[in-house]
């Protein structure tokens, strides 16, 4: 039973988070910062696109290094 539950959790983790968990954490932090600034009255539309570019570059660079 425990093994099946672990397998089920593993499947959804792989489905949504994938190979690099830092990407998921980075997206959550970027959206949280955007929300916090919006509540403070700042239209911080640029945070998420900037975070996406940084996260993508860092993630592929890390993956390429580990494969070299």
């Amino acid at each position: 039973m425990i093994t099946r539950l672990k397998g089920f959790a593993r499947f959804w983790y792989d489905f949504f988070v994938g190979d690099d968990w830092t990407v998921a954490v980075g997206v959550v932090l970027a959206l949280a910062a955007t929300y916090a600034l919006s509540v403070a009255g700042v239209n911080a539309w640029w945070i998420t696109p900037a975070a996406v570019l940084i996260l993508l570059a860092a993630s592929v660079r890390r993956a390429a290094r580990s494969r070299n």
Partner: protein
Amino acid sequence: MNSAALFLTVFLACAVEAVEATTVVLAMGTARDWRSALSGVAAGLLLLVAVVAVLGPAISAVPLDALRLLVGGVLLIFGLQWLRKAVLRASGHKALHNEDAVFRQQLAAAQSASAGGRGLVPDWYGFTVVFKSVVLEGLEVVFIAVTFGANAHDVPVAAVAALIAILVVAGVGAVVRAPLSRVPENTMKFAVGVMLCAFGTFWGAEGAGVSWPGADLAIVVLVLLYGCVAVMLAAALRDRSKASS
């Protein structure tokens, strides 16, 4: 959101997943037993319909801002996964997805697996392999179609795009009876990764309270920005690995 952009994104994403599932169905049908393979398809589709029936109304019940923040965030994480893999493939750091190779592997595994049926299914191995493939690839299709449709307030367009993509790919697969290796799958995955990231960014930030400059036009700018950066990243990684070898 533009219906054409919604249609195109869902169509491309669903076509890519359908190509992968079709390869497995063809391999199992060819090497094992067509009736069991097609039963696996039917059982997988039934499960996916049940998932849509539960997920669709549940998603529609969430308030729009919360839905956009949650779904946008998940789509963005999902899209970054696709784009990351696409950049690594394009730069030679990950093997390109090759339907011919997948077909040969599946065929070899199917030919060496033991025979035997259960209940109404004459070949249990073929049935379970096809069922798993249809469900796994189909879950991504369902997730993309339902979230795009709900966020864009246009579930019918998303559903039609998904259905047409699946019918086209399955139809071509049935006619040629061979893996659809001519479909530019890796390029399509690259494009879908860019689009998922762009829409995920747009909806996620909007749900977090952002008002985008240029309104919906911001999606086009995001697609261009992410597309250009991803192409440049792939080129830079390719150049670096050539220089070091």
